[in-house]
């Protein structure tokens, strides 16, 4: 076991800023062209339809313009990135088979607590390939599929072909096109009719190779009346050059099902995190996104719900913490395309140390609908005078039988609150942390315990030295 490399100082302390030597066995050259896309497809032994899909997506990627809004992406150079790296070995069957180096990385980021509990449900991604994957036996007996998308193409070709790219087509935006061309790894989840998965399915993703873009692809299909909670958590080592993380997550919630998708994103602050996440919510189905964004250099991420069946419901809870360096441009979108649908978007952001937190959201009600309800609430806390906060909610309402409410507030920690807590014997930093904790509490409550603990720890870490 080699000793971890020392932490590189990039704009502040990053607790998870260590990495192990890059041991990838196959890596494409820098940059992107047809040859690289073909090589990725070849390496994965994909059927022709997927190869063609990737090539069409590459053409779309070249044509699509960069977004002219949102975070500053001028530091991103597509030609300097590696688009594919294959790690050590094939997918391991059990925890014992996971390479020791990778295991130790997991341990350092605090997985063990969750690991012990949910060992069987974990698929973790190291670089762009699943290295560890096992599924609890009773789950597979129930017909639940939890695997990487490469295996799903082989083992469940009909399901993949039927749903892949139907929620987020490659023409959707430049980064969805890029992901569609070079995707690698991710998760594929299928929950059969009426099956309720009572433990959360978890996948950890990590970037390890320098300047390496990670393009995981996740497809979740919840069949009629089923339930599943999927958890994605991220942490990455610190590197000097920019890395790009551009995932695509598609959820199909068939009638009467419920899907909850939780993310705690804590990329190190050299990572561009540009992610497209969208759920199609059918009749009487419910989709909940719980999205926490702490790290990264630039994040642009707006989990979306498209309510296409009567009685569908969508909930988006988003929290962003913008410290020194990161620009968090996050939010949520709800599109109502059927009668009797409802949505709630709750966004909380904290900016400090010169950070920029931006809420950007869309609420759209298509024409001629009745009984549509929506509520969008944004709260922002600015902790010092160097930081800023923006709110860009967009509401497009094309029907008259609707009830739409929106509120936003931007404030700082009040002197009175601080004074009160300090008069009770707390230091200023303890008092600030307590107030911040209270501010994000509604969100923390939605998380499984281990995540709540981890998120609290991360916020505490981010808050260190925020006053004084």
């Amino acid at each position, binding site marked *: 076991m080699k000793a971890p490399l020392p932490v590189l100082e990039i704009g502040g302390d990053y607790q998870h800023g260590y990495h192990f030597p890059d041991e990838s066995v196959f890596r494409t050259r820098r940059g992107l062209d047809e040859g690289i896309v073909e090589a990725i497809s070849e390496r994965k032994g994909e059927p022709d339809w997927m190869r063609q899909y990737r090539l069409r997506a590459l053409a779309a990627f070249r044509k699509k313009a960069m977004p002219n809004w949102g975070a500053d992406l001028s530091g991103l150079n597509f030609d300097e990135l590696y688009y594919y790296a294959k790690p050590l070995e094939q997918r391991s069957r059990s925890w014992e088979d996971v390479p020791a180096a990778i295991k130790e990385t997991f341990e350092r980021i605090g997985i063990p607590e969750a690991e012990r509990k949910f060992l069987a449900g974990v698929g973790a991604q190291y670089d762009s390939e699943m290295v560890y994957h096992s599924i609890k036996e009773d789950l597979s007996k129930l017909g639940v599929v939890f695997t990487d998308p490469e295996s799903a193409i082989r083992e469940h070709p009909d399901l993949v072909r039927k749903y892949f790219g139907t929620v987020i087509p490659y023409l959707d935006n430049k980064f969805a096109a890029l992901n569609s061309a070079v995707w690698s790894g991710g998760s594929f989840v299928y929950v059969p009719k009426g099956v309720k998965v009572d433990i959360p399915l978890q996948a950890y993703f990590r970037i390890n190779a320098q300047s390496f873009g990670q393009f995981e692809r996740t497809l979740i299909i919840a069949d009629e009346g089923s339930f599943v909670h999927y958890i994605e958590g991220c942490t990455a080592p610190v590197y000097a050059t920019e890395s790009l993380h551009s995932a695509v997550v598609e959820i199909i919630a068939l009638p009467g099902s419920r899907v909850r998708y939780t993310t705690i994103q804590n990329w190190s602050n050299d990572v561009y995190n540009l992610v497209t996440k969208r759920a199609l919510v059918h009749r009487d189905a419910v989709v909940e996104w719980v999205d926490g964004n702490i790290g990264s250099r630039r994040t642009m991420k707006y989990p979306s719900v498209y309510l296409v069946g009567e009685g569908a419901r969508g909930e988006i809870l988003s929290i962003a913490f913008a410290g020194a360096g990161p620009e968090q441009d996050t939010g949520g979108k709800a599109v109502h395309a059927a009668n009797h649908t409802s949505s709630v978007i709750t966004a909380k952001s904290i900016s400090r140390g010169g950070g920029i937190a931006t809420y950007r959201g869309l609420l759209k009600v298509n*024409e001629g609908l009745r009984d549509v309800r929506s509520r969008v609430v944004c709260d922002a806390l600015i902790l010092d005078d160097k930081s800023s906060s*923006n*709110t*860009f909610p967009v509401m497009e309402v094309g029907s*008259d039988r609707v009830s*739409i409410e929106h*509120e936003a507030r931007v404030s700082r920690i009040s002197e009175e609150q601080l004074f009160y807590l300090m008069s009770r014997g707390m230091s200023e930093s303890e008092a600030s942390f307590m107030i911040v904790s209270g501010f994000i509490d509604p969100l923390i409550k939605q998380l499984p315990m281990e995540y709540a603990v981890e998120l609290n720890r991360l916020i505490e870490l981010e808050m260190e030295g925020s006053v004084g």
Partner: protein
Amino acid sequence: MSAATVEPGWMSELRREAAERFTQMPWPSTSVEEWRRTDVGSLDLLSYRSHPGLSASGGGATGGATGSAMGGVSETLAERGVTILPLSSALAAHEGELRSVLLDSWSLVADRIEAWQFAEWNSGYFVSIPQGVVIEQPIVLEVEGGGPGLLSAPRVVVMLGEGARATIIEHLGAGPEHAGLCNAALDIVLGPGADLGYFEAQELDARALYFRNSRIRLAADARLRHFAAQLGGRLVKTRVDCSLDGLGAEALLDGAYYCGRNQHMDLRTVQRHRARKGMSRANYKGAVDTGGTAVYQGLIDVGTGASGTDAYLASKSLILGDGARSDSLPTLQIGNNDVRCSHGSTTGRLSEEELFYLESRGFSAAAAKEMLVTGYFEELIGSTPADFGERAMERIRGRLAEAA
């Protein structure tokens, strides 16, 4: 009007520069956020010819209690140093003030429509109230909306000296003769502690196109209320941009709109906090009926130095029928932590219960609707000067009757 009016050189120079800028710029594209919902690319704006008879007139103005005829000021006001003149006639005599106001606004020009106004303005007023002068009676300005096929480009410049106080009512051409293209501008500069109420009623013909850029600057402790009633026009795109430049300034930007069949309204307010302890409120209420499209874009922009800012933005939209569309974009850009900024926005329809209640008391469906809609607007319009408010409310009732 007066043939003797020859434009001073600085103004001709500014017009030339504006014309050049106009030629270089494209029409605002829908890929720019502010113009995303209003597409002017397909309109043949250049087919509108500059209004021939306007070049020197202001339109019509009555100043103060005695209400003298166009362009004039009652003797009592004149004695107190109040100026109300057609803008073109004021250029020479008031060069000092006007030049700096217009150049400031010119430096902020954001798009081709606004540059066009500078190049082509052909009517409007200069209103100046000296330091310490308080005028109780509203000053009423009649502004030219532009006849069919014609371009009217009125520009109103209002300056209030330290501690001055006034109320101005602007009527923008009502009736079928105002069916052209109106590209209007308003510059307001308030000195320290000045207090202005500005009430604009836009009642253009249903065929008219209407653009307006209002640039407002407030010195320390100045107070402004800018109210806009947007009632007419086929396409309406306005921007009220208010900069709170001095310590403790206060601004209320409010308005009411009725957007019915074949109408497209895109209204924007900007509360720009540039100094400490400013207070601002934006409050827009609208009703959108079948076949109408309304967009409200509000921005609170707080600069890094503007600590102690207290800003609020509210928009309410009432949807009266199927096939109405209402977009609302209340945005915040906050670069300072010592602030209280918030916004609220609601979109909904008339309450079924209230309609049912009124109908059960013998009101017809149309009468019940009218009652509830006027009640909805009363909160805002009720606090405007009486004549102005009654006229706006009358107009809304008329529009509701047309729609029924």
